């Protein structure tokens, strides 16, 4: 693999055959996140200023911690992100994740995840780079087929 500097703004986009409301539910409700987000259980009220927590399966460990910055159901959700799943990332500055949900023609919705403000968090930037594609692919499969991706 080519050496690369981890990107300080990362962008991931996918078209999903689902309504914006369905996508909002899938990214905010733990009964969905456990099925495509590495089994993680989400905990937040998704009100501005509320905490954002992503627990490992069985709540064994807190994987991600943040704060909800903006919440506009079912269009836009922004929260800070601190990766606690490895020690190096945990000591870095919080970064920011924005979920943009835009309806398109023909019953399709575009979901874009922008993970930015990673300038002082190179370890986090590197560790999430592959993960977001996997998560969005799994989310699309779950919403379109009702089944999670077969685990590799």
């Amino acid at each position, binding site marked *: 693999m080519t050496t690369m500097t981890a990107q300080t703004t990362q*962008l991931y986009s*996918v078209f999903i055959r689902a309504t914006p409301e369905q996508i909002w539910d899938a990214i905010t409700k733990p009964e969905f996140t456990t099925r495509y987000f590495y089994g993680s259980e989400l905990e937040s009220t998704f009100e501005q200023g509320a905490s954002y927590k992503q627990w490992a399966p069985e709540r064994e460990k807190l994987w991600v911690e943040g704060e909800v910055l903006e919440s506009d159901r079912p269009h836009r959700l922004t929260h800070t992100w601190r990766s606690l799943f490895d020690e190096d990332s945990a000591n870095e500055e919080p970064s920011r994740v924005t979920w943009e949900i835009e309806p398109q023609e023909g019953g399709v919705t575009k979901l874009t995840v922008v993970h930015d403000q990673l300038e002082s968090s190179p370890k986090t930037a590197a560790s999430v780079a592959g993960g977001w594609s*996997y998560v969005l*692919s*799994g989310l699309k499969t779950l919403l379109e087929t009702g089944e999670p991706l077969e685990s590799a």
Partner: protein
Amino acid sequence: MTDDDLVFRALADPTRRHLLDRLFERDGRTLTELESELEMTRFGVMKHLRLLEAAGLVVTRREGRQKLHFLNPVPIRLIHDRWIDKYTERQVSALATLKSELEETA
């Protein structure tokens, strides 16, 4: 043309793969930056970027007066999850079966 067709078509060209590699190294670039690394007219680069955008492999954002190009790896992941996984899994399980059969008869 399906989404997968667009992705395969976009990837079936060395210049477009080269553009993706440039964005992989450093994301969020302007057309002018990308153009400076290719021996090709601005119009030619724009044409390739349009096909990459149509396939969802490149996404653009406006930042002030600039239009920045970002690599979007999700379509490649989708092809991986839907196609490549399916076939490699069978090969792996065939090898696993072969191994257990050989070991049983040994």
